[in-house]
């Protein structure tokens, strides 16, 4: 069993994620930000306006503006490449993104839970028996066994029952909503062994407390 204090210490020591910024193609690069500058991702709900301009790249007379994909601070910027011709996938800078409370919880959960992902883009529902059990006992009281049908994948009026093939466990987190189409590969359920539930809940609780302070 991992030590909760250790895990929190690890995230406290480095509550950041570093996003490298690479050129999409060849061209002349003109950097628009400085080292240490705070940048913002597009603020509108459609992620189109208001982002900080990181650099422009000119290829064959076609000037493209590249905006920050995420909030953070510029680090390790290659100033020597400013106004230079660069190849595709050339590293220009990194954005150090401070992780929020929810992002840390998401990361930890993805480490400690077995994620059951959507095999196809479709709508997902619990099978009626499991839904009834969850309703009666509560989400974290129902243990699912390998070989058990857990979900119905509904697409174009074609319902397919999905069988769980992992280790026995309880459903800790449900990532999907009924009647909403989930893209392929997106997480549907986070499953963990029953004995780890209290550990994960404690961990989430501690993170919420620690990050609020």
């Amino acid at each position, binding site marked *: 069993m991992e030590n909760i204090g250790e895990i929190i210490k690890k995230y406290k020591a480095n509550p950041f994620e570093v996003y490298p910024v690479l050129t999409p193609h060849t061209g002349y690069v003109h950097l628009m930000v400085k080292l240490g500058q705070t940048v913002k991702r597009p603020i*509108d*709900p*459609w992620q*189109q306006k208001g982002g900080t301009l990181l650099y422009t790249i000119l*290829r*064959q*007379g*076609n000037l*493209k503006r590249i905006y920050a994909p995420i909030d953070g601070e510029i680090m390790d910027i290659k100033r020597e490449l400013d106004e230079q011709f660069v190849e595709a996938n050339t590293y220009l800078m990194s954005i150090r993104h401070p992780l929020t409370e929810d992002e840390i919880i998401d990361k930890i959960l993805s480490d400690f839970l077995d994620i059951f992902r959507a095999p196809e883009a479709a709508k997902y529902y619990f099978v009626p028996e499991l839904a009834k059990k969850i309703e009666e006992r509560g989400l974290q009281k129902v243990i699912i066994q390998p070989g058990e049908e857990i979900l119905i994948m509904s697409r174009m009026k074609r319902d397919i029952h999905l069988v769980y093939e992992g280790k026995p466990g309880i459903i800790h987190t449900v990532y999907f909503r009924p009647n909403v189409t989930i893209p392929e590969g997106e997480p549907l359920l986070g499953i963990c062994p029953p004995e780890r539930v209290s550990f994960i809940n404690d961990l989430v609780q501690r993170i919420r407390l620690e990050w609020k302070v």
Partner: protein
Amino acid sequence: MLELEKKIEHLRKDLDYITDIKGEIFGERLTEIRNWLSEIAKKIYELPRERAETALNDIEAQIEFFEQEAEKYLEPLDYVRIARHPYRMTLKDILENVYDDYTELGGEEKCNIDPAMVVARATISRRVGSRVYTHQVMVIGHEKGHGEEFRNGGSAKPWGNEKALRFMRVAETEGIPIHTYIFTPGAYPIEDPPGAAQQIARNLYAMARLKVPIIAVISEGGSGGAEAIGLADLRLMFSHGYYSVISPEGAAAIEGKIKEGQDLPPELVKSCAEQLKITASENLKLGTIDRIIQEPPLGAKGDDFEFFNQLKHEMIKATDEVVLKVRGLSVLRGYYVKKKTGEKNNAVYVRWELDEKEISKLLKQRAEKYENMGRGFFADRRSFLKKRVDEVCYGWLKIKSLLYFGIFKRPYRWVKRFVDDLRGEFLIITDRVLRPFTNLKGAIEKKFKRPTVQLAYEVPPKEDTYLGEIYVSPLANEDRTISCPNALRYGCYDIWVPDLYGELNGVCPNCGHHFPLEYQWYMNHLFDKHSIKEFNTEIASINPLGYQGFDEKLKEAVRKTKRHSALITFDARVRGISLVVVMLYSDFRNGTVGAAEGEKFILACKRAKVLRRPLLAYVHGTAGIRIHEGTIGVVQMPKCTVAVREYIEAGGLYIVVYDNNSYAGPVASFLGCAPYQFAIRSSRVGFAGPRVIRETTGEDVPPDYHSAENALKRGHIQGIWDRRDFRKNLYMALITMGGKNLYYR
């Protein structure tokens, strides 16, 4: 004492009102009066009643004096303040005080399909001698609700306008006149079904031939929202209202290129209000309204009962006037109604129900009224001789059309119909007589004849190999690449510009995104070779309101485009089918519509009607009504819609195709009313742009809110066409929608 307290409250409100409208010219004097009133209010129970009454009467006289003083110095922007003030009369006040009785239809207060639009079945009565006559009317209008938030300030939502139309039809069925009251800053600019633009267009289209008298009164006439219930036989306006193409603040934001969130300079707003010619007297001069209803100084408030009495007589008089104009026996009454005003015309009685003959006269007069509206606000650059020659040519065209379609074709059509029916009848007889023989023949053939293999040769359809004149877009002259806006979504590669605007016809080879192309491309690729013959090119836009700086902008547009208006009208052919085309193009003042464009449009409708040809409106781009022409521009909405309705009623086929960006007034009137509307891929169609929506509703709209795909989902358009298939699709549309009636029903 209660009376005195009420009076104090009333006077306090009057003081607030003067302060809000024109407080700045009185300075400290208003404060003194206010202090005096406060002192009396404090001592109301201590002072002797007579003294308090005298003091309050003095204050009242002083306030009246202030009102009269302020009235002398009213500026256009003050009329806007008056019309928007929460103390101003609203439709509910009018319904309570002008009409004897009313029943609200389609909900009440908050429990309403749209509280901003009130519809009521009401009665209005008049005394003639000792008899009282009661008339039934349908009252429709915007309700601002004295600051009630759920009324949206009188901004009707699309379903509110739909409600208005529904009850207009009820009035039509019942044959009762309609009184509309316009108290709106503009329509609520959302595209939720039925869609702001679509519904206004439908309202205008229906009102163009609604078979009952319509009287409209304008208090706050905000552009398209006002027109949704404003197409009337008689348009009245309150003396302290305003009627405008755009709010002065909106005009200032456009003129001053003020960014979103920045404060508008008050001087610029004031200047725009002055230049837009928004007041009642200015609108009367422009001919966009017929008469002014005089209000008390600084405008009528909710408790001006004397004014409501006057309004009642004005409404009765206006309805009488409209009815008498179409009535046979009306000489004396017509004269009396015209000459006498107010209670003096009490001796007149007019029955408001119309018979069939009167209805057709009413509709004819309505069409003529709108045809003549806004005339004289464009330039006709033709010489005197050319004008006469054109008149003669048009006259000859009409005679030819009458001879061919009216005299030669009509009996031919009758004979053809009769022969068709006769043949149908005959087929039944021959079938009954011959069936035993054919059955026998079939049976014999089946028994003795060997089956033969029959080779069916299908004649391949003739391919349309026409690829247009050799025309290459000047956009293709740039030596660079361009990114597709959908590159992130679909992974489109950069496209070489000469390829894109050359052989790719401006279409992304990966995702099919259509890059904008100039209107000349369509003129060269869409129509048959050498088939385009432009007409009315000499009708030119001018600066009718003398808007500051607009002359230079016009000159620049003329220099850039070598044309004189934003609308090109021409005869053309598509795979042999002749049609009349109107083309709004964005290079000239963003394709905005003013008096010249409106006139050219109705002349094209008339030409299509005379020549019995389909009418195609291709919208290369339009930003709406030209704000520099003020209400002259706004009236082009009903004017052109009436022309379209007349053309369609006469049997014409009207098709609209949107391209690039098509917004606002034209879409909410003569374009949006078309039964068949299509859009070119990647175009945007809507009522108001994202900024206006954001500023009005407080909500952001998604980037694809106005896209052709969403317009199709909402039912605004009937299909999306690829630019490369435009010619083919247009031909198919003409054939399938026109069919036998292509050249007239």
